[in-house]
């Protein structure tokens, strides 16, 4: 019975996703992450707490938010919107009064039933396209109890299930999820644990363990964001490829660095923490990948 009250902190549910696993999928984005990749394109996923997201292009600086902010966190300075993150408790009062949809409250507690109701709406699309449901984030495994219950319910409903994970969690967590998973997308960002720790905030030991243990037990797609200044050297990528191959994993997808997330940092009132502001072109990425020895692997290139 306690499961009825079980809630997950989500920042989005995206229907009709074509990029997050096989077929047509609904992607459930869980909030909160135990890594902090400075290039992350979903900065709203890092904190498990709700956040205020303000879209500059829709904001007319009418001041309603400032008038209604009980914490005094939002003010207009010289007609410019300013929000003090120290004072803001993300109560959402400003969202309620914004006439332009310029403010959003990102992050909300959802019950399993509430999420299931949304997932059910596209069940015919999953069935027709051999698609299903993907849990992403953030790092979805951090909300383990919620995720486990969601996966059970999806299995009961006959939905194909997948997760997108950074791999950085205890093996027991993955092991508990494994019987309920049909597909796993897992990042491997660097083989050098020290660099991994320095840049992302956590070493890669658990990632490697997860990869090794998952191999052969569930279809695995390894995802490698190719980040200039971090892992975009040919040798670094070759090390990743070799590691993946050694674990007996067959599918690897390279994702070119992009900077579409920069505007999201602005909307959250934060600074983009990564110093590279030029995206990688598909040609650059293809050039890099072509120079690798990827024998025995299926190589995909994301956009």
């Amino acid at each position, binding site marked *: 019975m306690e499961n009825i009250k079980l809630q997950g902190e989500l920042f989005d549910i995206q*229907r009709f996703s074509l990029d997050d696993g096989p077929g047509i999928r609904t992607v459930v984005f869980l909030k909160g992450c135990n890594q902090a990749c400075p290039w992350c394109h979903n900065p709203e996923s890092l904190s498990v707490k709700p956040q205020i997201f303000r879209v500059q292009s829709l904001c007319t600086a009418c001041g309603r938010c400032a008038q209604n902010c009980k914490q005094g966190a939002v003010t207009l300075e010289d007609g410019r919107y300013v929000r003090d993150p120290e004072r803001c408790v993300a109560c959402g009062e400003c969202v309620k009064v914004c006439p*332009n949809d310029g403010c959003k409250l990102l992050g909300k507690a959802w019950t399993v039933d509430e999420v299931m109701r949304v997932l059910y709406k596209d069940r015919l699309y999953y069935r027709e396209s051999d698609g299903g449901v993907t849990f992403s984030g953030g790092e979805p495994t951090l909300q383990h109890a919620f995720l486990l219950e969601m996966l059970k319910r999806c299995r009961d409903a006959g939905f194909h299930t997948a997760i997108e994970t950074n791999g950085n969690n205890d093996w027991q967590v993955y092991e508990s999820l494994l019987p309920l998973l049909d597909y796993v997308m897992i990042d491997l960002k660097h083989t050098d644990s020290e660099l991994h720790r320095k840049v992302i905030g956590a070493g890669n030991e658990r990632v490697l363990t997860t990869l090794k243990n998952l191999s052969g037990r569930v279809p695995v797609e390894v995802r490698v964001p190719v980040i200039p200044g971090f892992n975009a050297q040919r040798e670094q990528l070759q090390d990743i490829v070799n590691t993946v191959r050694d674990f007996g994993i067959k599918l690897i997808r390279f994702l070119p660095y992009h900077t579409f997330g920069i505007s999201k940092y602005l909307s959250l009132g934060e600074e983009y923490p990564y110093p590279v502001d030029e995206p990688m072109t598909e040609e650059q990425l293809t050039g890099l990948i072509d120079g690798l020895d990827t024998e025995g692997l299926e190589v995909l290139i994301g956009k």
Partner: protein
Amino acid sequence: MTRTERIKAYILNNAPEICTERARIYTEECLGNMAQPVDVRRAKAFRRFLNEMTLYIGPDDLLLGNTASKPLAASLFPEYAVDWIEDELDTFETRPRQRFVIPAGRKEEIRAICKVWDGKTHFDRVDYTLKHTIGDVLMGPGPDGKGHQHPSINQTMSIEHNQNGDGHIIPDYVSLLETGFGPVLEHTKQKLAALDETDEAYLDQRSFLESVILSLQGAVEYTQRLGELATEHAEKEQNVARRLELMGLARMCEKISTKKPDTFYEALQLVLIVHLLIQIESNGHSISLGRMDSYLYEFYKRDCENGLMDPEKAQQLYECFLLKCFEANKLRDWGTTEILGGNQLFQAITLGGQTRDGKSAVNDLSYIFLKALGHTNMNIPTVVVSVGKTTPIEFVDASLKALVAHGGGMPAFFNDDIAIEMMTRVGVSLEDARDWASMGCSEVRVPGKHATGVTPVYVNMLKLLELALHDGRNPNTGKTLCGTSKSIKDCQSIDEVIGLFEEQLDFYLPYIPKIERAIAESYYTLTPTPFLSSVMDYRIDMAKDISWGRGPNYNDTIVHAHGFPNVANALTAIDEVVFRRKKYTMKEVLDAMNANFEGDEYIEIRKALLDCPKLGNDLDEVDSMCGRVFRLMPDKMKQFKPLRGGQFGCTAQTVVMNVIDGEVIGATPDGRLDGESIADNLSPVPGTDKNGITAVFNSVAKIDHKLMDNGSILNIKFHPSALSSDEKIRKVSHAIRVYFAGGGFQVQFNVISREMLLDAQKHPEQYRQLVVKVAGFSAFYVELEKKWQDHLISRTEYAAYA
């Protein structure tokens, strides 16, 4: 450059101009022999024009035929209306869009032609009848000349088809390809000889059959002239390969001028000639081509077996065909130009679908045609695919690939199974229903068996709701034609509000048959179309012009009803805010609307209204409201019969009237501001669909589309990245199939254009929900930095032309 690129360049090198050849000859023949029956006069004019008009052959043309003296030139059709020509004569060359050049010295001629036709046209006749039947409620053009310039009834419905021809038909190409012109001509002569002279309809039938004979003779002579012109060109041609092509065309035209076509090439040429001749006889639009992959397949297959044809050649010929359709042009008054979004002739071609015995009709030609479409990428003609339970998914994939290659929203996808149900529901036999093809924008027709469908009115549903909310009074005009049985402020439930809305419908809708009567009567009396009649499957035997309607087969008169998404959103918002949550009273909502939601308090009311469920989000309360108001129109129109027989078939498509409709409506309870456009077709109100494409599909599929047999349209905008790989294309194919299996009727995708993205930069509030996908990451376009918006703009342009 490929041949197709050269032909395109050749066509586009012409500035559209007004050609007076037709108007001159029609004026002499139709007004010079007034004692002769009108169909005979018109047929003589048709035949003489076909014998005297300027014909041309482009340097790379593989198909022949033209409607006016140059590519993109437009003839005048003074018999339909001259007032607007006179009024706008000095602006055709300078108006904002769709300009037409008037050749030196022709302006005076046009003025003289207008003068002699003044008082004798279709427009004058309709105007006379309307004034004498419903003159007390008729209103002139919109207030302060804003918007389109057609008469209306208290702005709730605007009257169309009073200035141009009938159109809206698909000829019987299947029969014609079996016989060619010769046997039809022979059959008509026999029929004429066999008429019963004692029959009271004898003279009427006689003049009709004579006019058919004259028209068909004109068609034969036109085809022969094309052949002779090809011979002339061949004799002068230095390039041996081109000379051979021209000689082949000459032989072909001579042959098919009377005999049946035997090859794919000949069949295609004959179809083109008939298609163009119909548009010479009358300037009605939506003359459609039916199932071009089906009726040409046997020719193609036989040619391939005989080594005469291969897929590349067939594709090239299709491309030439598409460009020939593009070449035909039409001059319209400025008001209609705005409503119809340009010079569109709405020449629809349908691919795929089913055979008469219920099997998939997809064949090699279907795929070849899709390739030709993608390779030609012009906005005209319209190509649609019919997709249903029998359709292989590979064909849906191929259609999406053509969509990407085309870059401009074609082909559109139609649900074959729903179309068939629409037809059988109104009494069409199952076999005929399986033969259906799209006509114009979204209308479902049995080629050769459905007579012309007038579009008498465009009904503005949201305006009718506005009237109901103002106790029957039109706030713009101050006129109350139908007071409500009680004040809106006294309503206790949404059902009572809907009751007031229905009162307005019940008052205004009965004007539709009165208007249809005036228009249909005039077409039959003043502008019969014997040539068109001759290419329909039963008109010769019936010895009665197609504009008379009736007959043994099918008649359907089109009634447009616009604004369902807004009406559903508005009623849902009232229900939610006023009755369920009791957050504001009806009076407060009305006050806010009347103030256009300006002022602090009213902005909050607007916010509350905007926050209510909106169509397109898979939310049952508003979706079922939309289904409920959608049903009102077809239910209520059932009680009326058109003059031409058959039924009034409704459609929810708006062309681009949604902009003009919005101009005459003040602020509404869906949160829409004064003068803002209403939703296009059955698409969600821009910016209100927030849950992705499957949610839009699910919402729209809940509406019972079968009730409106003239169809509806759903526009969806796609970023090209959504269709960037075969894998994703297959996923979208699956989504379309689910939408169709759920009951959706039509969907068309805009793979986002550069123009749209530029517009989104200027008006981010209208594009809030425009999603750009970049692999596992997606963002709202308006939230992206300008730099990245610019980046996407350049990349999209590349994708659109790749």
